[in-house]
């Protein structure tokens, strides 16, 4: 793997695999990461998604060599780098706090890594990187004279310019406005596919993670809850946390009453909900099943019996919020609480109103069964989940607000 050798002074010609084996990290009195196993194939765009404080930054710091793991090994391109120092690893980081050198100009900041490796045309490469983030005209300024968003782009340029085998991005687009963020997302993807670097991108923003990444890992309390292609993760969440953190979900908990070959039936407060066997993580006892709000259809009257659909109702619409493309309804059904429904505004006649009595139905094939339970958990756990779902809701609201402004 000579092409990844930093001391050679060359650029990484391609991204490298990253492998974390049995990594854990304990701070005095606090376990930030417990048992993390992760393989990121070379050249992929990997997103690490999770609520605040779940250990995302710590994971990146371990990989960058800024923190030593308590247990476990880190391999980059098949080479064990656990014992090497940060400056010896073919890895660069875009720091959450930018960490630009305040005593240097933007130009000097961007050229810093190149110069340390003794690369000849450092200055012209730095200019190219600055052009990429559209800041070349400010090359002579000091970081303090830049806006937060501009600083973030400089931090990005300073890391990308080194063409590392592995680029770690710690919420690099957090401070940018929506338009610039979308633009930078495209730029980032371009850079990534052009040079074939491996990107490990940390974010709060589920939409960012889903649109940019090949693989998304959802992290919670120092563990990876689920990992996979964005679509798989969305369509088939395996835990209540993922179901709620990534988009919204309606969850129902009950006992399994019938087990057939292709599907199982759960009795949730008298309502029978059928789940395909291969979409359920557990097949007996008390389980939680769910469905995404946009998969649910509203009916004015009880729908005809149909073995391919799950039906709940009647309930009452308690909230209607119209958002142009779609309408979000909140339907309160006795015993089941509030159920969200997203309906496309395809025809005016299909509009329902606050207080209307409705039935809900969705295709059995869209139902998923979780590995854990949403209800009846220890109180502390419940609180934590409430927090994280609130973060998800909040970030979604922020995004919507931004979208409206744009």
């Amino acid at each position: 793997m000579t092409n990844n050798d930093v001391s050679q002074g060359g650029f990484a010609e391609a991204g490298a695999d990253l492998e974390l084996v049995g990594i854990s990290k304990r701070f005095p009195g606090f376990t930030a990461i417990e048992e993390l196993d992760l393989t990121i194939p070379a050249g992929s765009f990997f997103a690490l998604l999770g609520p605040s404080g779940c250990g995302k930054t710590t994971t990146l710091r371990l990989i960058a060599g800024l923190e030593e793991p308590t247990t476990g090994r880190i391999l980059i391109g098949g080479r064990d780098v656990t014992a090497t120092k940060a400056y010896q690893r073919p890895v660069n980081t875009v720091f959450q706090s930018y960490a630009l050198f305040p005593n240097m100009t933007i130009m000097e900041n961007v050229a810093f890594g190149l110069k340390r490796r003794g690369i000849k045309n450092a200055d012209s490469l730095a200019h190219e990187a600055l052009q990429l983030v559209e800041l070349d005209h400010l090359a002579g300024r000091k970081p303090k004279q830049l806006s937060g968003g501009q600083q973030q782009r400089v931090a990005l340029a300073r890391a990308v310019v080194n063409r590392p085998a592995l680029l770690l991005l710690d919420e690099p687009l957090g401070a940018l406005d929506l338009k610039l963020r979308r633009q930078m997302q495209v730029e980032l993807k371009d850079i990534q596919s052009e040079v074939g670097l491996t990107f490990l991108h940390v974010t709060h923003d589920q939409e960012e993670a889903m649109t940019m990444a090949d693989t998304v890992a959802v992290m919670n309390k120092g563990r990876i809850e689920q990992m996979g292609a964005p679509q798989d993760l969305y369509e088939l969440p395996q835990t209540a946390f993922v179901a709620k953190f990534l988009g919204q979900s309606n969850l129902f908990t009950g006992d399994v009453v019938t087990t057939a070959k292709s599907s199982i039936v759960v009795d949730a407060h008298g309502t029978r909900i059928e789940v395909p066997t291969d979409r359920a993580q557990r097949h007996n006892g008390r389980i939680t099943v769910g469905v995404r709000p946009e998969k649910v259809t509203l009916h004015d009257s009880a729908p005809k019996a149909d073995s391919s659909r799950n039906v709940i109702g009647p309930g009452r619409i308690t909230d209607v919020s119209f958002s142009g493309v779609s309408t979000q309804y909140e339907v309160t059904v006795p015993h089941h609480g509030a159920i969200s429904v997203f309906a496309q505004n395809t025809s005016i006649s299909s509009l329902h109103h606050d207080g209307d009595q409705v039935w809900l139905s969705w295709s059995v094939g869209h139902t998923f069964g979780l590995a854990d339970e949403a209800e009846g958990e220890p109180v502390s756990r419940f609180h934590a989940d409430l927090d994280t779902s609130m973060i998800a809701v909040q970030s979604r609201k922020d995004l919507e607000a931004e979208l409206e402004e744009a």
Partner: protein
Amino acid sequence: MRGFGKWGIWIYSGMAFVFLLIPIVYTIVFSFNDYRRTNIIWTGFTFDNWLNVCDAQDVCQSFGNSLFIGLVATVLATTLGTMIAIALVRYRFRFRNATTLLIFLPMATPEVVLGAGLAAQFLQAGVSKGLWTIILAHTLFCLSFVIVTVRARVASLDPALEEAGRDLYGNPFQVFWRVTFPMLLPGIVAAALLSFALSFDDFIITNFNRGAEVTFPSYVYTAAARGIPAEANVIASAVFFLAIALVLIAQVSAAARRRQLAKAG
């Protein structure tokens, strides 16, 4: 009443300034005195004292000693103090708090006690007193001031900057000289200036540990009994002007840099 208050402020601050400035003005004026045996009575104006400072050999010699001691002690104290300050902020070790407390002790101890204590130690260790014992003593008490000054600067330094340096392929040596040191420099310069001023100025501790060597303050002290030669006034005035000039240069260059930055932006 209002009128009186307004005038009162002016008179009060005017008098404060006069009292502050009289000794300085006196020193400067009498550096131009064409004195015979004692420099107490004004006998006429001359530039001779300024042009031939080293005619009064002891003045020049003692001034040279003070400069040498000040420079060496400043370099030693600033280097050691910076290293200690970084260690105290960045590393957790046993007795860290106790060490921090000990650092403050020399600043709180009366100089007479410090000087006498050191003198006793030198005597016991059989070290003959001279320039180097003075330098050692000065380094010792300047050290505390350097540590306190630099420590504040280290504490306000974002560790993420050094991490970024390491992440960008800087080895520990490069990270220190290119990231840490430039960030600490203002603190280090301030500490060095303070050290030099303290060392140059010190009389009490020096007096206990100087043996036969004479520094500028101890020369002036001895000479005061007989009458201080105007050459001593020349040196005192020159030091005063130098200090003022340094401050002015610093101010002007800072303003120029600000203007330049504003233009660049």
